[in-house]
């Protein structure tokens, strides 16, 4: 695809620019859709309808209207806030999750950058998110924000351990950190004759690994039941309390981008990425993008589903869950997968 664009435009920097904003477009369109979907899912789970008016059909334009409203709103910075950090925080937050999309193969024809340490890069750059949240919480000069930020620090640092360990167990199987290669390894329908060659079917322990990964990913993206940094019924809005207008909108966008990012990573690592579940049927670069986003959206939907079902954990229980259950379990799982790999290969 890059070659095609290069031949078409015959200018290096422009092509790179066009090429590199593809994920941004996807994120923006996805965020508009996902926020609408979240409202609809929430509505119907609660026997309501959700947005119905804006745009005509089932309120499809509601998020666009909200976005326009947010752009018009006054950009309020509290008088006693640290202005520079306060204004920077949302951008860093978004940059962190946007940057991570570089290493994700959206289809067989598209990956932002073919870096060999893709997984490592994603893990590293998403950690920036917690920095930005601490910045936001501290700079707001608000006690609720500060509490939220402190929770985030503890939460993100803790949950990175099980995330990395479960990713590591996949890497044992694939032997590469490059996500494109990880995906390519999962093509074909060889497993048990009809199931796709996805890593989740590799061994029973892989299912557990995915499970652990998913829980940790929920915590990393601050979704219910792990939404302690913002927990609106306790901390008012957590680190977002003092934000308004588009800066708040950027945090919102980051949250949804983060959901998609972790879902896509999960889909790539466990569910064959852009591979079609039907072997060569419906396969190809464009179909690949479709499958990739579909798998991502399914996981995003499950996150929403959980959000509208479960209450929220308390901060000490969150830590308990991580350090007492997830981390030991993921290490044990890592060892078991390693043994499985030794025995059956």
């Amino acid at each position, binding site marked *: 695809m890059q070659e095609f664009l290069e031949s078409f435009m015959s200018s290096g920097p422009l092509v790179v620019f066009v090429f590199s904003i593809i994920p941004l477009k996807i994120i923006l369109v996805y965020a508009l859709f996902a926020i609408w979907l979240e409202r609809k899912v*929430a509505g119907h789970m*609660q*026997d309501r309808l959700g947005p119905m008016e804006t745009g005509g059909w089932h309120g499809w334009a509601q998020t666009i209207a909200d976005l326009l409203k947010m752009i018009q709103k006054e950009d309020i910075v509290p008088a006693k806030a640290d202005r520079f950090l306060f204004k920077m925080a949302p951008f860093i937050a978004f940059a962190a999750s946007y940057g991570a999309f570089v290493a994700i193969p959206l289809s067989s024809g598209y990956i932002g950058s073919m870096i060999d340490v893709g997984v490592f890069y994603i893990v590293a750059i998403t950690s920036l998110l917690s920095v930005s949240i601490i910045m936001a919480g501290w700079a707001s000069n608000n006690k609720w924000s500060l*509490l939220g930020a402190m929770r985030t620090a503890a939460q993100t640092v803790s949950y990175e351990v099980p995330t990395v360990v479960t990713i590591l167990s996949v890497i044992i199987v694939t032997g590469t950190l490059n996500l494109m290669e990880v995906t390519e390894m999962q093509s074909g329908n060889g497993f048990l004759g009809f199931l796709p060659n996805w890593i989740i079917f590799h061994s029973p322990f892989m299912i557990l690994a995915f499970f652990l990964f998913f829980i940790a990913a929920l915590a990393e993206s601050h979704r219910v039941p792990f939404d302690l940094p913002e927990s609106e*019924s*306790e901390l008012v809005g957590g680190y977002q309390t003092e934000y308004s207008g588009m800066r708040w909108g950027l945090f919102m966008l980051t949250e949804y981008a983060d959901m998609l990012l972790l879902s896509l990573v999960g889909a790539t690592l466990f569910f064959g990425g852009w591979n079609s579940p039907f072997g060569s049927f419906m396969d190809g670069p464009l179909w690949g993008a479709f499958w990739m986003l579909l798998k991502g959206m399914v996981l995003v939907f499950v996150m929403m589903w959980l959000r509208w079902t479960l209450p929220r*954990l*308390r901060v*000490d*229980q969150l830590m308990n869950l991580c350090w007492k259950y997830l981390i030991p379990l993921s290490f044990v799982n890592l060892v078991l997968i390693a043994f499985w790999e030794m025995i059956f290969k």
Partner: protein
Amino acid sequence: MATLKEKSPEVTVTPPVSAGNGLKTQEMVVNMGPQHPSTHGVLRVQLTLDGEIVVSAVPHIGYLHRCFEKHCEAMNDYNKVVPYVDRMDYVAAMNNEHGYALAMERMMGIEVNDRVEHIRVIMAELQRIASHLLAVGTFGLDIGAFTPFLHCFIEREKILDIFEKASGARLLYNYIWIGGLMNDVPADFKKDTTDFIASFRPQIKELNDLLSHNKIFVDRTANVGVLPDKVAINYGVSGPSLRGSGVKWDLRRDDPYSIYDKFDFDVIVGEGKMGTLGDCWDRYIVRVWEMEESLKIIEQALDSMPDEGDVHESIPKKVRPPAGEIYCRTETPRGELGYYIISDKSTSPYRVKARAPSFVNLSVLPAISVGAMVADMVAIIGSVDIVLGEVDR
């Protein structure tokens, strides 16, 4: 002249202490409310925090004070007090009216007929269910579960529909009058109520599956805000909050008013099933099972309700009670609601004092919240189930 400046309760914050590694730590004072999503209105709790742990909690009230008692004295007719009574505990207006009407009837020696008594009891119990639904729903909301809240509201709406058919209002009914009722119930009242009972029983089970026995919910509420029975009694806590501590005290059973002695129902008490006796979960589950008991009462009352009877029969032309005073207490969804009324033989009350259960129950908050975390504060406030309209009056 004495200054009227309000003296705010002392909040002592310890001076910064060294944490031993060159850093200093200090307690933090946070105002929880009056604009806070989980203080159920306009309660302000002044929290002193050590990190996330509550060192002290001082509730500040009065943000919703509307001079209920003074308003009552200004009314030139006892009947005019009823709309004001509605506005005390605005999620359980029927129970408030019931208590006030009973107090006035006792004072004037009015006997109401059986049909009126039955309708009053059915309305009061429906209102109890509606109020408990709101309490458990918002409690779930405080813990972070949004969906059960709206499921509860759907059921509550059905009850409000029944009320609306009978009285014309959905929240502040002015339905139970001194000596009778505003209107007789509509013709399809019995059917509506029976339908509601039939559709509501499975909903209680669903609520239990979705919220009460959810592991995260149990973890958040069990062993949190433990209120031992002795402390509860000492503070004068009443209602489900008291029964959650295992004290079997229900005015409907222990000091029967109206016709409650006719009905067969259990007094639900907390058992400490998920944690310590008297924790937030116990207080919560008492409300859930009390809804079931209320259904039982309603069913029995519907069966024994006489079809004939004029609801206006004993409404006095002019309410002019003899000089004297009365204290009449009833069991509202929040606890013991008592009216102390003094009459000077005129048509206007000399004094109306309400012993509001929410106010008394709130007083226990500082005692049970020390050592909890900020997130537990929310659970504790939710489990005590206060209505600020009644706290401040």
